[in-house]
């Protein structure tokens, strides 16, 4: 679920969404339905059956005006809290949400706790446990979907115009596609040595960064370098071969030959692997007008809620409440990563920093591969009479790459400089360039042809190289009486087919599937099998990383889902708990008690004990495993002993090795007695994993919670 991009951008019309609503209310337990009836249907006791109440409630919440009236009864704080929860995808850690609301809108956590409790009483927000705040605040998706349209404007990023200028020091102005290919060409020409940890040796790194610094900008060249390397490695185009970082030439060629849309998907896939919410972020920015900016503060807020919402959602669904160490999650939008990709740009205005999609970013979202917005029709390289090849940014990337195979790269900048040397020409021939092909490429693909002196000299350099050559192509054979038909077909399709002899043609390997389809479409019945002439037919070559990624991208798997909600069944209504009053000591008024319905059977017994330990909500962490002082841990253990409850503890040995052996890192124990020996407090408890009684030093208990029955 993407709360800020709900398909319903307007309030629901009459009768809309009533089926999901009906389904939701029908799934509610009777006590909850009664509470809904008392709250919203005037306590109409004529509606006494679950089915009748559910139907009436679905009608009420499905009715736009009635829903508006319900929402209008809420105050500003309630609206802010609802918006925050919707932005979080409907699930948020209890303490986290309170802190988030404090951070964004001021007021104290206690005040927000009361606000949330009000929303709980309004039966719009629930918890998953009986403490206050609960481990998680939850807003059923159907309610969220129904309410979101009323907050449509506030759920979107606002576009701002005015005196905002592009920030010069935080924007990377290099042409990204051109830069990536230049980077590959550099590594092909000068593979760099790496350590066993695949780190580039300092000298080589400095040399490399220095080489690219004119293009990347000297001050941030290291960051740009890291980004390039990470992305290209992720795409499988860079490989560490023994102790050398170099390119996978076959993969690079495949990559450049891919359809632009596939190449774009590969990039997006890589970005999403880096940060799952990138697509969400880009889409939000794309909703802003072309000349508008988004205040970075608001973007940070929205991203943070979305990000943490997705984290809480996963943990809620998986019931893993243990919170990793602080810093494990980074709820800041990956702006620098996107800036390095050239997709977004930052601006500075009187009121702070702003951000927007760059032209490249807009093209990327429209389906163009990364950096392809920089490519202009008709931009070509020049071969100069002094053997320099001048390659401008804006040229087709495959041509940029090809020049790098033929000539030695001497400078990288907005216009790269290469020099054709004897060695570079011989290297190109060794890499499979054919004599004629090489001369033809330099002559025809360049803007002003191949100068006569360069052609003559290159021919001299090539010498007799290439008298015998190996070719990599797919050979097709055609029965003589069908030869003309097949060739007509291929010509119409503008397929490349070179005649090698009567009925024997060479076609590019990558055209095989297309040719096969075309032939079948015209009634031919070619076998899809390729006759191989290897001495021993290979069992099947291992696919390259790129092939794997391309297959995944095509299948749409592999990509992390930024969906936040998931299936309704992931948090069934029966697991939800009506929110508890902010403090156990607070005597709830009659009306409030009426609304406090224990949905799960064991909740009430636990509640008072949990309330004991949750007088200070912050102590409970982010609605997870509780991290408490040894004193409070001891108090909880005492309470558990007195009530005969089991607890789950996170317990580590002095060597920091987990003794639990459990995948969640938790150990279920039945505490028996608290004791002290030579100043060390410990608890005797029955260890359910080892089926024996053990002693646990209290100060080494790193997390504790009541075990579910």
């Amino acid at each position: 679920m993407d709360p800020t991009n709900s398909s319903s951008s307007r309030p629901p019309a009459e009768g809309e969404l009533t089926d999901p609503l009906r389904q939701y209310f029908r799934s509610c337990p009777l006590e909850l339905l009664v509470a809904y009836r008392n709250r919203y249907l005037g306590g109409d006791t004529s509606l006494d059956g679950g089915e009748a109440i559910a139907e009436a409630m679905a009608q009420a919440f499905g009715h736009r005006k009635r829903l508006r009236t319900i929402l209008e009864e809420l105050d500003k704080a309630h609206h802010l809290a609802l918006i925050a929860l919707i932005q979080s995808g409907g699930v948020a850690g209890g303490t986290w949400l309170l802190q988030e609301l404090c951070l964004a809108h001021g007021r104290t956590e206690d005040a927000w706790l009361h606000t949330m409790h009000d929303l709980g009483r309004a039966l719009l927000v629930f918890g998953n446990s009986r403490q206050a705040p609960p481990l998680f605040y939850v807003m059923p998706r159907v309610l969220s979907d129904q309410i979101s349209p009323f907050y449509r404007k506030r759920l979107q990023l606002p576009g701002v115009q005015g005196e905002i200028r592009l920030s010069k020091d935080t924007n990377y102005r290099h042409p990204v596609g051109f830069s990536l290919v230049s980077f590959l060409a550099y590594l092909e020409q000068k593979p760099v040595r790496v350590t066993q940890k695949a780190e580039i040796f300092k000298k080589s790194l400095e040399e490399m960064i220095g080489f690219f610094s004119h293009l990347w900008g000297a001050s941030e060249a290291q960051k740009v370098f890291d980004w390039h390397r990470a992305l290209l490695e992720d795409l499988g185009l860079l490989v560490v071969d023994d102790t050398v970082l170099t390119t996978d030439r076959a993969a690079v060629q495949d990559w450049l030959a891919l359809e632009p849309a596939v190449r774009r998907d590969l990039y997006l896939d890589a970005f999403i692997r880096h940060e799952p919410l990138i697509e969400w972020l880009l889409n939000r920015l794309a909703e802003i007008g072309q000349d508008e900016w988004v205040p970075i503060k608001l973007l940070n807020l929205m991203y943070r809620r979305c990000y943490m919402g997705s984290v809480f959602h996963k943990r809620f669904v998986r019931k893993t409440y243990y919170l990793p160490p602080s810093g494990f999650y980074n709820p800041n939008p990956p702006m620098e990563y996107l800036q390095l990709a050239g997709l977004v740009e930052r601006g500075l205005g009187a009121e702070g920093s702003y951000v927007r999609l760059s032209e490249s970013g807009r093209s990327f979202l429209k389906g163009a591969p990364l950096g392809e917005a920089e490519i202009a029709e008709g931009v070509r390289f020049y071969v100069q009479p002094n053997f320099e090849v001048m390659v401008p940014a804006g040229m087709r990337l495959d041509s940029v790459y090809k020049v790098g195979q033929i000539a030695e790269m001497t400078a990288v900048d907005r216009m790269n400089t290469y020099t054709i040397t004897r060695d570079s020409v011989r290297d190109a021939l060794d890499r499979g360039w054919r004599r004629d092909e090489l001369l033809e490429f330099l002559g025809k693909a360049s803007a002003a042809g191949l100068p006569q002196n360069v052609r003559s000299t290159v021919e001299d350099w090539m010498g007799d190289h290439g008298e015998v050559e190996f070719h990599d192509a797919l050979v097709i054979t055609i029965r003589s009486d069908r030869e003309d038909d097949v060739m007509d077909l291929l010509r119409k399709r503008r397929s490349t087919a070179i005649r090698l002899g009567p009925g024997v043609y060479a076609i590019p390997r990558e055209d095989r599937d297309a040719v096969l389809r075309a032939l079948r479409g015209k009634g031919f019945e070619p076998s899809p099998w390729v006759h191989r002439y290897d001495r021993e037919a290979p069992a099947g070559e291992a696919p390259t990383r790129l092939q794997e990624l391309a297959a995944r991208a095509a299948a749409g798997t592999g990509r992390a889902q930024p969906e936040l909600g998931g299936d309704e069944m992931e948090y069934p209504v029966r697991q939800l708990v009506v929110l508890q009053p902010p403090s156990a000591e607070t005597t709830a008024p009659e009306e409030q008690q009426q609304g406090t319905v224990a949905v799960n059977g064991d909740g009430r017994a636990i509640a008072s004990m949990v309330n004991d330990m949750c007088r200070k909500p912050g102590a409970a962490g982010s609605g997870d495993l509780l991290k408490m002082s040894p004193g409070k841990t001891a108090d909880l253990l005492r309470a558990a002993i007195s009530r005969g409850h089991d607890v789950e503890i996170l317990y580590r040995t002095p060597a920091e090795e987990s003794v639990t052996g459990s995948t969640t890192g938790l150990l279920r124990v039945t505490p028996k007695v608290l004791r002290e020996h030579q100043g060390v407090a410990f608890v005797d408890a029955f260890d359910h994993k080892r089926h024996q009684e053990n002693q646990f030093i209290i100060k080494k208990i790193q997390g504790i919670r009541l075990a579910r029955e």
Partner: protein
Amino acid sequence: MRFNPTNPLIIQGDGSVLVEVHSPRYSEARDLLARFAELEKSPEHIHTYRITPLSLWNAASAGMKFAEIRAGLEEYTKYDIPYHVLVNIEESLGRFGRVVLLPGPSDHLLLEVHDRHSAREIALNKGVIAQTAGAVREGLFRVPLGNRGTIKQALLKMGYPVDDRAGFVKGAPLEVRLRDRSVSGRPFALRHYQREAVTTFHRSGGAEGGHGVVVLPCGAGKTIVAMGVMAECRTQTLILATGISAVRQWIREVLDKTWLTPEDVGEYTGEEKQVRPVTVTTYQILTHRGERDGDFTHLGLFTAADWGLIVYDEVHLLPAPVFRITADIQARRRLGLTATLVREDGREGDVFTLIGPKRYDVPWKELEGKGFIAEARCHEVRIDLPPADRMIYAAADERAKYRISAENPWKMRVVAELLKRHAEDRVLIIGMYLDQLQEIARRFKAPLITGKTPNAEREVLFDAFRRGEIKVLAVSKVANFSIDLPDANVAIQVSGTFGSRQEEAQRLGRILRPKEADAWFYSVVTRDSREQHFAHNRQLFLTEQGYSYYIEEWDEDRGIRPVTASPGLPASA
């Protein structure tokens, strides 16, 4: 990234600027760049300029402002301008004019620093302070007259170019008038660009002018610009040239195109020691020492008369001792002449400080287009080594290999064919090895000039060549510098030193004087040899200078023929 494919400029992160020659906006962009950037190389399609502090100070001294440069670059750039390049330009430009040298009350000059921070920085620099006679107040220093050059050098080292407005001595008066018709009978007047150069340099005699460098390509008439300046300054003049032949050529030109008489113009060389109102001398004689570590014998020439103007020919070749003495004569007007500001020794800063900033520059392609200098076509004729020499070549050491390939006997047959091709032209055959040149002279009945040829005999042969009595002249490397053979339009290079770019430029310069026929420059090179390796460097240099370069080949059966279709061959080919 902004991208405007139709614009011609590509401003690189390293401060170089590439210009697409084929862009419709090329000419405008080139004219803009020429004002604040140095042309580094100009091969056919993309020219490279470089923006350096010196080039910017040259521009600043001509009154150019940052806003104008920025607007110009933005107007013509293809991509975004790298931010740091703009910052550097602004910073460098801002330094010019921050330190000004002004006339002082008596025997001192005043150095004024217009920026408090810079004044403090300068006050803390021992090298600079040592050249002053104390401070008048913060930011104002007294400078002894004799330290005018050295303090400018010291400040340039700190990154502060000095705007020298201290003025010049007038020098002893001398009326120099240009003729309307030269002594040789040809109509004579300054061309428009020569007049512009004179005006820009002289600046009506104000202190902001009167010193600096005029950059013009070979054959564009730098000598004539100097005469124009002499006519404006009306003062006795000392002219420094590269060699004795050049000295005599200067004298000939001055006498031919001004109303000065032979009594007014003197030669101060190893052969003559005349000090006259206009004296022409060589760098060699000025840097001559009696003993290895002794004093320079002839430096007194600088003070032998009250020179009001000193002309430095080929300023990119100015030797270090002349820089030193130039530092002491900063009160005299100084005109530098050159085809390139780039020095092999990297002392461009000294040229800027001691001679002065670039005052005028005009692209040679523009002059070539207007017919002011000849269009040169460079051809390399590749030949095989005769079978008999191949084994000797294979067994020889690297140095011997070069000589074997340079003296390839088949080159004689190529020269014969080329002479046949250019039967109506004036041909110089240039070589490095005397045996080879003597063989050429004998075989083609061409007079030979080498280092051993007495000057008088050289002059006779050059005169005969100029008059057309001799059509082919064989010369060794003595002819590399400043021989004016206006009618030579073909050069055949049969051997040369190891890929020297300087030599190549000078040899080509011999045939660039304006004339009706195009200029042809041939190099005969042995294929697949050490010579071809070095010839490749020369090829790179010439193409970087913007000359067209064609490869031809020769074999016994078919003679010379283009490797592939070679445009522009003469009709006889």
